């Protein structure tokens, strides 16, 4: 993939802005404002600090949920991919498609209606994405690499450390990029009950008040938040997987 440069971002944002304007003009409904008013609302929200607070609250929820999903999903995915039998696979295939939202009543009863249940809801959805991606990555490790380290005397943990984990690491970052985008989308749902803070709540409130400029300011903030997570995952991958970008340089 080619290196991204600042002008690439500008062109992409320009295409998005032009599309937005064209759609808003074509639709001509209050529920879809022009770009200008939405940006004004965004600017006011940021200037007053209110939107920043909502973004920060959402960011924390997503970050906690992602961290938890990684901590539990990566080791379990590695285990299922290497030594988990067919039972493990069937379990995953059966539980993955279940819409996790149906557990919300149970989660609310057990974990309350506060932050914990929201983080858990997001975690539950991310966990499966990370689990399945990591499991597939761990199962697809090059047999030749395993033979090479086994012949050198590696066993147990050493095989994981020298082959399985580094071979799967780029997939963890792929899973991370996919799931942070999902997480921001799930926010809207998780933050519509029992909270006054978070971007989901902000968008929901604006919608209820039919303040569509504010509503779309919140939508833009969600996009920026998702973009931020994506970029963070990219940077982290650069640091953790330098070999992925290593090209022939003569």
């Amino acid at each position, binding site marked *: 993939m080619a290196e991204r440069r600042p002008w690439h971002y500008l062109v992409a944002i320009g295409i998005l802005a032009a599309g937005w304007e064209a759609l808003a003009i074509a639709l001509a409904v209050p529920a879809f404002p022009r770009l200008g008013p939405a940006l004004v609302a965004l600017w006011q929200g940021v200037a007053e600090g209110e939107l920043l607070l909502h973004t920060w609250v959402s960011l924390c929820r997503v970050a906690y949920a992602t961290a938890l999903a990684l901590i539990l999903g990566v080791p379990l995915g590695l285990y299922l991919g290497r030594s988990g039998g067919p039972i493990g696979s069937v379990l995953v295939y059966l539980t993955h498609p279940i819409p996790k939202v149906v557990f919300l009543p149970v989660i609310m009863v057990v974990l309350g209606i506060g932050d914990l249940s929201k983080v858990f809801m997001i975690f539950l959805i991310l966990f499966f994405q990370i689990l399945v991606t990591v499991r597939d990555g761990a199962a697809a490790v090059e047999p*030749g690499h395993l*033979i090479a380290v086994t*012949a*050198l*005397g590696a*066993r147990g943990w050493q095989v994981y450390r020298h082959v399985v984990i580094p071979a799967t690491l780029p997939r963890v970052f792929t899973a991370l990029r996919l799931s942070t985008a999902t997480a921001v989308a799930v926010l809207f749902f998780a933050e519509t009950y029992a909270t006054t803070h978070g971007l989901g709540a902000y968008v929901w409130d604006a919608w209820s008040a039919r303040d569509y400029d504010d509503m779309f300011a919140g939508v833009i903030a969600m996009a920026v938040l998702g973009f931020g997570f994506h970029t963070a995952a990219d940077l982290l991958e650069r640091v953790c997987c330098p070999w992925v970008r*290593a*090209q*022939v340089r003569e």
Partner: protein
Amino acid sequence: MAASSPDRGPGAGVMVEVEGLRLVFRQGREETLVLDGVSFSLPAGESLALIGPSGCGKTSLLYILAGLLTPTGGRVAVARAPVVRGREGTALILQDYGLLPWKTVRENAALGLRIRGRSPEAADRVLRDLGLWDLRHRYPAQLSGGQRQRVGIARALALDPDLLLMDEPFSALDALTREELQDLVLSIWRQRRTTLVLVTHDIAEAVYLGRRILVLSSRPGRVLAEIPNPGAGRPEYRREPAFHQMVNQVREVLARGWVHG
């Protein structure tokens, strides 16, 4: 560790002893006989080339010597002891994938030492000897095929092995690079007198590097001939008439085995 019984045990100078080796692959209900009644012995400090048509089980035989595969029947001893996986003195050089893409040249070369909990310094020394020191921070993707296999050799040598196993190590390389690396292996063998077992399908390579040549039949692999090749082990051999005669002799044995096997 239990030594082999004194009456049937190999002599003092024997590095590899294989007797009546049988290997059966089972896949579901299907059984495939891969190796059948293979016997040979190799004195320490000698070199052996295993050659045969593809599918004759020569790579499986090498994996058995490395302890990566367990034979179905027969007896295998390395340095007078039953084969164990990851034996201290055994080093294996593979055709592809031997190097880990996420480790630099230096980390790859030191991998065997690190796994065995030894200091990685010996790897640095070998990298310098093989002219790889300037490339030590590169990843395998940033190397040519010949450089990669050099690193594979460096990793094996860092362990200071007494038995070097090579599985078609140079078959993916162009002719010039291949000869250059064959010369490197030869000079290593001359300096260190490491016992060498080389699996190859390249007749010239077998004749150049193997002071004994074991010709295997097509599946199931049986020993067609064990040809002494005392001329091998010198860099000049490749240019001598005796070398070409030996190449022809091996070719004939292979052709006969192909027809009757």
